[in-house]
């Protein structure tokens, strides 16, 4: 039985007067790819952002329930939020390079954490860019501006940037939605290698993508967790009719 990395216990979340998540309970296994899929408005992105407390930046949100990382409640008062975000990294749907060079982008996280040693930073740059399948394409121009890269390269840069901190968990929100099929394939390939070391939670941008890489899948609809199972069986033999209708394309 795989060990559990994150436990989501009866989590509900409202924003303004909208109820975005209702009573979500789910265990996320360690060192595997967990997929949160479902139609838009299901609450998947919100749930991701709750896992690294990025929703703290939103003023009007109210959460109930608990989220445990390695057994610790991350919403406990006094919990060190910046260090949480170094352990639980996030890649967003749009490529968002920071102003500066490729090197500056990748080393941003470690530098903020206090790392100054040039040699170690250079090592981190190479390791992270290799893990993101970007090293060969940029190794000769690490000091050129990051926004001169193509969309697919920028997105892989953002993955490298998160990996530079060696997080325990990597959250990816539709990371390949703006990318061409070749870049998408490269990203999926990297994830399959990364899952051996990291816990990965991904909101895929298509069911097909979910089917290609999921070790564990959860279907969300209108803020509810409809069902969740290990393996890929949810895509071929779901137990709930709503899941079946979505997977077969009757709505979406």
């Amino acid at each position, binding site marked *: 039985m795989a060990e559990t990395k994150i436990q989501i216990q009866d989590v509900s979340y409202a924003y303004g007067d909208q109820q975005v998540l209702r009573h979500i309970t789910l265990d996320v296994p360690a060192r595997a790819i967990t997929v949160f899929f479902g139609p838009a408005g299901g609450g998947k992105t919100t749930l991701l952002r709750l896992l690294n407390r990025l929703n703290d930046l939103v003023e009007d949100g109210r959460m109930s329930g608990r989220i445990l990382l390695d057994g610790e409640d991350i919403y406990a008062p006094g919990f060190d939020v910046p260090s949480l*975000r170094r352990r639980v*990294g996030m890649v967003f749907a*749009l490529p*968002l390079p920071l*102003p500066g060079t490729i090197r500056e982008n990748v080393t*941003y*996280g470690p530098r903020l954490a206090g790392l100054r040693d040039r040699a170690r930073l250079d090592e981190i740059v190479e390791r992270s860019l290799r893990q993101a399948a970007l090293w060969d394409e940029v190794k000769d121009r690490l000091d050129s501006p990051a926004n001169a890269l193509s969309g697919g390269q920028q997105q892989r840069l*953002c993955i490298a940037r998160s990996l530079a*901190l060696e997080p325990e968990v990597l959250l990816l929100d539709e990371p390949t939605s703006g990318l061409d099929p070749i870049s998408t394939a490269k990203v999926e390939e990297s994830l399959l290698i990364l899952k051996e070391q990291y816990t990965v939670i991904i909101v895929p941008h298509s069911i097909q993508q979910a089917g290609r890489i999921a070790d564990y899948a959860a279907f969300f609809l209108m803020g509810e967790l409809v069902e969740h199972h290990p393996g890929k069986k949810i895509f071929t033999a779901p137990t709930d009719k709503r899941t079946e209708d979505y997977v077969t394309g009757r709505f979406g």
Partner: protein
Amino acid sequence: MRNRFVAQRVGFALLTLAALAVVIPILAVVAVIVIRGAAAINWEFLTAMPRDGMRAGGIFPAIVGTVVLTLGTAIVAIPLGVGGAIYLSEYARDTWLTRSIRLAIINLAGIPSVVYGLFGLGLFVLLLGFGTSIVAGSLTLSIMTLPIIISTAEEALRAVPTEFRTVSASLGGTRWQAIRHIVLPQALPGIITGIILGLLRAAGETAPILFTVAAFYLPRLPQSPLDQTMALPYHLYVVSTQVPGMPPKIQFGTALVLLGLVLSLNVVATTIRSYFRRRRQW
């Protein structure tokens, strides 16, 4: 069909005339001052003390006074202004208090400068006992300049995309780290432009310094911050109206120096702004 084209050309012609109507008076002002004042400009005029009841010699003490007052204003208004802008843009939540603060800043920007002068007289010169001095004058000018600096700095900070802050947070950065490493550097060109424009207004104003620091004539340069000083705007007023028998070229020469100072600061500000706008990475 033909009517539409004619109407369009007439329209464009009227708009061009309107634009010229704005530009021509400005060019005329500059031209008159340059033509009638250029004769006075020489090394002595810029570096020597006035002689013969200020009808001859130079305007050096007025130039020094204006520079000193502008520096004094900068020392107070820049930290307060930029700090206030960072607070309003990055930390303040939208409450009735912050909305009142913003309203106050907008109103402060509209207060006539002579009212600031009177305020400075009452508070700094009399109540706090600084007397008519560089300190009182700089503090008064700072308060007048603060709204300009705070508004332009806040606008520059807000123009930096929110996404950068989110990305920084997702990499374990605190709010201050995001400001220090990303937001502030990206907003700096806009902030600097705002500072320069604010300072050049402070350099050119007469009313605030009239009651708080300006001297009609001083035989030597100021020795301490509690001294009075001469200053270009007030000196221009003095040589234009207060001294009989003043040669016109002195008057226009003084105006030309003040104009030159203000215009060159303006050019510097505009150049900084367009240089960084071209290099912007978002």
